[in-house]
Each structure stands twice: as C-alpha cells, then as structure tokens.
C-alpha cells in the first residue's frame, strides 16, 4: 500500500463514493441517510486535509472540520425529520 497520503486519500474517496452509491441499492433502513451523510463528511475532511493541505494547519483544520460537521449535522437532522 502506498505511503503517499494524497494517493491514500484518493483511494478512500473513491471507495467511500462507491460505498455511498451501493447503500442506495439496499432496502431502506433506519439511519441510511445519516450513514450517507457521515460518509460525505469523511470525504469532505479528506479533501480539506489532503487535497487542500489543511493537514499542516491544525487550527484551520479544526475550524473547517467543525463547519463542515455542522452543515452535515443540519442536513442529517432535516433528513431524519422527513
């Protein structure tokens, strides 16, 4: 397995995208929307940390992580409320 964090991040992004699409082919289950949004949050963090380079800027990384988590939390709450 590659040690390059960029390539590892790309592999995870592709894997999570495939997993997210595969989940929608399964019968509806409780928490499906939450699981899909949790995967989206992980993907967003991978892009922020490795593609955009926030892995080397801990203060900014924490701020952006919290902001994206807040957006996903809001979307998740609205999804569950439907």
């Amino acid at each position, binding site marked *: 397995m590659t040690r390059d964090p*960029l*390539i590892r*991040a*790309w592999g995870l*992004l*592709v894997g999570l*995208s*495939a997993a*997210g*699409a595969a*989940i*929608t082919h399964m019968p*509806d289950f409780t928490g*499906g*929307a939450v699981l*899909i*949004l949790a*995967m*989206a949050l992980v*993907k*967003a963090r991978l*892009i*922020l940390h*490795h*593609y*955009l*380079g*926030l892995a*080397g*800027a*801990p*203060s*900014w990384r924490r701020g952006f992580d919290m*902001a*994206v988590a807040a*957006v*996903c939390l*809001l*979307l998740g709450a*609205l*999804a569950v*409320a*439907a």
Partner: protein
Amino acid sequence: MSAPQQDAPGLLDELPGEVMMWVLIVSELLVFGAGLAAFMAMRLTDPAGFAEAQAHLHRAGAALNTVVLVTSGLLAALAVRAAEAGREARKRGLLAAAMALGVVFLIVKGVEYADKAGQGIGMETHTFFTFYYLLTGFHAAHVIAGVVLLALVAVLRDPRATETGAAFWHMVDLVWVLLFPVIYLIR
C-alpha cells in the same frame, strides 16, 4: 546588542495558499450549504413527491462523476507538487489530465440534463427539480470556471498560481461530495 526580533508567524501564515481563495472557499461552502439546507427543508413539505422526483435521477452517472472529480482533484494536487519541484512539463501534463476529467464531468452532466429534457422534466416540473437544476447547474458553472482557471495556471511558471488554481478545483470537489449525497442518494 540584541538580534532583531522576528515576528512570530500569525494564524493566517499557517493557511496554505492564497488567503483570498480561502475566503472564496468559505463563501461557496456557505452558499451551497444554505442551498442544500433549503432543499432538505422543502423536502419536509412533500417527502413522497421528492422521492418520486429523485427516482428520475441517474445515480450511477452521478457516482461516476464523483470518481471523475476526485481523480481530477488528485491530478491537480500532484500538479502543485510538480510545480513546486520545478517540473513544468509534468505540471502541465497533470493539469491537462485534470482539465480533461473536468470536461468528462461536464459531458456526463450534459447527458443527464438531455435525458431529463427528453422526459419533459424542467425546473417547473417539481420543487425538487427547481433545486436540482439550480444547485447542480451552479456547480457545473464552477466546473467550467475551474477548467478555465487550470488552463490559465498551466501556462504560468509560478507554483503559487498553480496552488491557487488547484485550491479552486478542490473547492469544486468539496462542494460536489456534499451535493451528490443530498440530491441523489438520500431517500
């Protein structure tokens, strides 16, 4: 005599790339975040109608586009490394490949829109499609802008410019990984 004091690096110095690009990234996240929240709020008023409308979307095409875009993002990130190492030819090759994948994304999106038009589906068909066209269309406009920006920085011999162009491209990636599950996947 004491040595001149050096200023301690500030918080902004820690941020990679151009500060203005980060201002743009935050602005775009706020705009798309608000749009997606409004979409989910409208879904509360008609869950069955939204589910029926969503069934007309081509999830496999959108999933393919996710892979296309994140791969393009990887190529742009590798181009930044090449620019920093002074490897201009490699940088240009990687940026050209990233742009080509951006064009593939737009072609898949165009096929998707043509399919909807063929089914007689437009912005007025349902609230779902109003948001679908607004959010995905606005994102596609950013993809076009990103391809143009990558083409511009490809000809500049300035690693900082490459980093700035790539940051815009990653912002397009970032928005898509949030937009894709909300519009296409959540039932």
